[in-house]
């Protein structure tokens, strides 16, 4: 695939946001908030950073692998997967409907190309990514393994088991990203369960930590991922703290937990789509 410019990637992101909103609106269910907040990240991964093959093979030998731990933001993943050729874009219209391959939370049961493990019950993706990364080491495969987690998800205990393990066993072909939007379903993380200082927590566990200060700026996101990659292979797992705004790209959705799991109505959809240009053609 030809390398896309930042502007071209931003155009893809605009379409991805339209896909997210239209999918969630159509079934009046799903999670638009963090999907919109992570749109630059997913676009940068699938259209710029990952070495991957849309002719999907589960094993992913000699490919970079991506795992989504906070599976509820499936709309953004489904959009980038279909927009990068894993399955027809028309299939997005089946999101969360009966007999669809696009389950509410990502799953392998229906053989949707691009998905390697089910997620949705939180806290499990980091462990899975570690296993996949260690398998690559055994196989002498020098590609990377990426995983995205939520910040609220850091409240799950399994994550800290995995964090301890990855540092102890020097799983340094792993780049974990936390979507630091400071929101969870019941409210701001500061009120629900204060994360205090995730950088200090992970550093004390033995990780290399970087911040991507503007996770909704394409250039910054790519710079962050490039930096993370440059720090890999040095004996420590790498954490990328991706500072995002939930609902980014739609003025009335931005920066609040209110749109975590709420679908826009007809008028709200129209208002939102008016803010996002249709760059690649709606499905």
């Amino acid at each position, binding site marked *: 695939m030809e390398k896309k410019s930042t502007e071209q990637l931003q155009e893809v992101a605009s379409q991805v946001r339209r896909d997210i909103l239209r999918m969630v609106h159509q079934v009046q269910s799903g999670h638009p908030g963090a999907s919109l907040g992570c749109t630059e990240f997913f676009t940068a991964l699938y259209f710029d950073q990952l070495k991957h093959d849309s002719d999907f093979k589960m*094993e992913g030998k000699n490919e970079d692998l991506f795992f989504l731990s906070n599976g509820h933001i499936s709309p953004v993943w489904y959009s980038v997967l279909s927009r990068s050729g894993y399955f027809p874009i028309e299939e997005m219209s089946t999101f969360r409907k009966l007999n669809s391959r696009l389950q509410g939370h990502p799953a392998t049961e229906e053989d949707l190309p691009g998905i390697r493990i089910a997620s949705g019950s939180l806290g499990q993706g980091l*462990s899975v990514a570690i*296993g996949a990364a260690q398998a690559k080491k055994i196989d002498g495969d020098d590609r990377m393994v990426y995983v995205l987690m939520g910040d609220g998800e850091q409240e799950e205990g399994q994550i800290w088991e995995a964090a301890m393990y990855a540092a102890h066993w020097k799983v340094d072909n792993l780049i974990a990203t936390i979507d630091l939007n400071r929101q969870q379903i019941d409210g701001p993380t500061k009120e629900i369960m204060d994360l205090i200082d995730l950088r200090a927590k992970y550093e004390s566990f033995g990780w290399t930590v970087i911040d991507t200060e503007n996770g909704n700026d394409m250039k910054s996101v790519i710079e962050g991922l490039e930096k993370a990659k440059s720090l890999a292979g040095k004996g420590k797992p790498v954490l990328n703290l991706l500072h995002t705004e939930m609902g980014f790209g739609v003025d009335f959705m931005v920066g609040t937990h209110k749109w975590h799991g709420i679908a826009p109505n007809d008028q709200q959809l129209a208002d939102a789509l008016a803010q996002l240009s249709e760059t690649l053609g709606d499905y």
Partner: protein
Amino acid sequence: MEKTLDLKFNYTDKKDTRSGFGDGLLEAGRKNPNVVGLCADLIGSLKMGAFQKEFPERFFQTGIAEANMMGIAAGLSISGKIPFTGTFANFSTGRVYDQIRQSIAYSDKNVKICASHAGLTLGEDGATHQILEDLGMMKMLPHMTVINPCDYNQTKAATMAIAEHEGPVYLRFGRPVWPIFTPADQKFEIGKAWKMIDGKDVTIFATGHLVWEAVIAEAMLREEGISAEVINIHTIKPLDTEAILDSVAKTGCAVSAEEHQYNGGLGDSIAQTLIRNNPAPLEYVGVDDSFGESGTPTQLLEKYGLNAANIVAAAKRALARK
């Protein structure tokens, strides 16, 4: 009592079933380079040391973190590795049920969950560790195969067989030294019940350590003129319903015997099979809705009603209901 009985199966040696697992894992690892091992700080108890020593690069010590171990195993399997996880049965199931459900069963990953110290025969450690609900939890998960072998040889054969089987498996074994009464060269067929003793009056369906108790019970019943058929149900799921129905069609009544709650265990599975096809009398030998306690394996099997004498009594109750 055993000495005076004319047993159809005998033994010259006793060993723990967990050693069958350890030795089977080593052989499976020698046969297939994709076999990898994981353990949550119980390498000695699970007898995984020989595998670790021979294949250090294919062995993963996770520390006391079973949830993480299950996730890592799932991740390893994606590239084609065949992960065998090892910890106690309690920590292999209840503690990590959601990790198994989502990352292994629902995701249909080729992970072998190998669980030692199952049941009452764990002994003195007591009820915190004596899980009696694991077969039920595991058999309810779609895609999951559930196996509970009866002695060292069968556990070793089962361990090697599951390495060749594609899909998630729960393999349950235990701690006590136990008679080795099945052949060393047996072929282990997943899902295929083994008729060990022919009989015509009552069928005893037994799994795990209680297969040995069933062998003793058959001899005791024979002395009283009752002909019992003994069937070794090493695979709880998929259940060999054909073997069960064929036998009960002949004998007309049955006993299930397991080191587990009969609520949710082998007894339940056999009852479901019979009720839909041939509602013959069935008596359960299992734990009746209680936790275990500290004691020796022999004491516990007696107190909780799981030994040969209990199987004999259950067989007579089943016969009386024909």
